[in-house]
């Protein structure tokens, strides 16, 4: 048996497990015990699939196979564009489209032509230049990516680039997001030096602030990466 994230599977109801087995195999799992069902899911799906976000979504959305129209919907339109939407402070969803004409033109010029994404930190002052934070190679078959941003610049965009005959050119750019850094990730220094009293008051207020994220017994109820980071830097909320 494969070592899979069984704890996640164990949390599922029988109906969902049966559905997962039936979806991607010819097996009839109706006579299986719960443990046999989990083993069967582990046999059918590779480990990396079981650990993926998509799989988690598949579990959470049992009926997604019925969403046929979105699976058949066009991935490309007759235009070249790129868009970015923020899912949270670290993950963004990027999707792009290259018009058939542009696609043909690139490959006609260079059969080895390729495309990639540049994440750009936009210059805030005239004398500064835009800065490439990182690049991601993508294939012509792709049209979307969920991208992890280790640090969100205060002003940024994603750019679709072509690499044709060694020459790199921008072919589409997204909306420029102006982002405010969360205070505890900010490198900015406070304008006035805080006093012991003001720190204490702010901490007290802040502890009450974060109360929305704790339950009546004082335990954290929200699994939030930003909050985790906050606690690493600032400690708990119930002192």
């Amino acid at each position, binding site marked *: 048996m494969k070592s899979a994230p069984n704890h996640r599977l164990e949390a599922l109801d029988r109906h969902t497990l049966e559905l997962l087995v039936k979806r991607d195999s010819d097996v009839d799992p109706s006579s299986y015990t719960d443990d046999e069902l989990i083993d069967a899911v582990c046999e059918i799906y590779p480990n990396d699939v079981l650990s993926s976000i998509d799989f988690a979504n598949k579990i959470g959305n049992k009926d997604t196979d019925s969403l046929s129209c979105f699976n058949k919907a066009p991935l490309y339109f007759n235009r070249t564009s790129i868009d970015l939407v923020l*899912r949270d402070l670290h993950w963004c969803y990027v*999707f792009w489209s290259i018009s058939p004409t542009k696609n043909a033109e690139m490959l006609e010029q260079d059969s080895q032509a390729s495309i990639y994404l540049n994440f750009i930190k936009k210059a805030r002052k005239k004398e500064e230049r835009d800065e490439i934070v990182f690049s991601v190679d993508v294939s012509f078959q792709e049209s979307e990516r969920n991208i992890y941003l280790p640090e969100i610049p205060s002003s940024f965009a994603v750019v679709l680039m072509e690499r044709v005959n060694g020459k790199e050119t921008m072919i589409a750019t997204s909306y420029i997001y102006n982002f405010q850094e969360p205070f505890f990730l900010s490198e900015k220094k406070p304008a006035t030096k805080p006093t012991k009293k003001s720190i204490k008051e702010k901490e007290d207020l802040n502890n*009450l602030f974060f109360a929305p994220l704790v339950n009546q017994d004082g335990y954290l109820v929200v699994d939030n990466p930003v909050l985790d980071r906050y606690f690493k830097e600032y400690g708990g909320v119930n002192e």
Partner: protein
Amino acid sequence: MSKSFVNLTLNAHLPYIRPLEDERFLEEDWYYEAVVESYLPLVRMFNKLIKDNVSFRITLVLSPSLVEMMKDRFLTDRLLEYIDSHIELGEKELKRLKNEPKVYKVAEEILEMYKLAKKEIEEEYNYNILSPFQTLNEDQKIEIITTASTYAFLPLYESKPSLLTSSFVTAMKVHFDNFKGYPSGLWLPECGYFPTLDAILKKDVLESKYFTLSSTAFSFSESYPKRGNYAPVKTPSGLYAFALDGALMSFVNSSLTGYPGDDDYREFYRDIGYDLPRNYVGKYLHNKEHGGFTGYKYYAVSGKKAEKDIYERDKAMYKVKLHSENFISNIIEKKNKVQPLIDRPPIFNLAFDAELFGHWWKEGVDWLESVLRLIDKSDELKTVTGSDYIKEYPEAEVFSPTFSSLADGTYSYPYLDGNNNKIQRLIFNALDKVQDLTTRFRTEINSVKLRYLNQAVRDALLLCASDWPKILHNNSCPSYAEKRINEHLTNIDKICELLSHNKLETSWLVKAERHYPVFEGIDFKVFTLD
């Protein structure tokens, strides 16, 4: 000592759903259930408080989609058919239960609820569900405000200002036409906010002065306000922003520890539509094979027991008393902690879905009534609306709230999960098409073409309703969300094609306008590029 403030907001929104005359589907029942079980009982409760001279202030968000449904006579007629069929079922139930007095009493109460709703709609409200809300608003007992026209989740559309503007301009018009003026405040769907939104709002929301955000909009910002989330701030554009108090709200909202899960309250999921033979209840169900909800629910939550106890109203009302007192004591406890830290009496901003009260949580309306009565009697607390507070304390710290929402995970996750994120590509493409079209034809004067352009914007707004990705995320009825997304995408494509080829099909246009007769005064020019 000055009283501290409780700013209670009830948010009423449902997706705009309107069947064709020969259609009948499950999703239309959402509206009928909400009217009978939540909206009308809330009106009744507010009127009872007024009659008893209880002093209270409460904010009610009525989404433009819902306002359109409430005043739609066709939907009211369908609602009455729904009520009639539930009365018929109730009368059958009383015959069936004549030898079971405990259950009979519960069934009788439910039947009375349907009969009362029918009487009110026909005799008091003249078949217009909006009218009691208009009266309450005119009498200034409750403050009705609006939200984005189809409840689009705004952070997804930061790069689409035309959609944002048209959502608010349309909402303002609907509000003005129905409530004789512009709203004093604004509700952002799911409290979804991003830092440049306030400038767009300032431009489009006319007389609205405030909006409400998740507490993380303040606490995760670059700095945090000196009064925490216990006083509003002023955004750089000059609008007031209030932050919700999620901790207090969790006493009601938490699925694990919230009051609605108490053992003595009515169990929502046990319904005769699932419990009784199909040949008996089948007539009242959309899906005879799988069963469904009929509204006749006779059991109490009863903990984790397999055998549920029969619901007893007296026991539940005793819990209502305990829970409302507990809620008030928690607010006062928090007030005592916060008060010494800030320079004015704190305001506690609380918001709940209106449909929670009565529909999901049967005793919720009673609980709310009890809370409002307790606050009225309290020496320490007072209910206010956002605009009441601003009048009393116009000074506010200038502060930039950050990207945030009330959605799971604080940001946009439920709208961009592994499945529903795919629809953003289709939506963005459609929005760009509508923007191209409305900009190209901005000087058009042909009245039929103007109707086509208005229809394109109407479809764009309906397409962007946050309900569809949310339904896909929750997997609650994905095929209906899929159908609606497809319908609006197809309409937009069709309009682009017809106008581009200067080919007008009036019969198609009339059919499209009649199918979703919403936002009558919509003006496509709000979608054009400046």
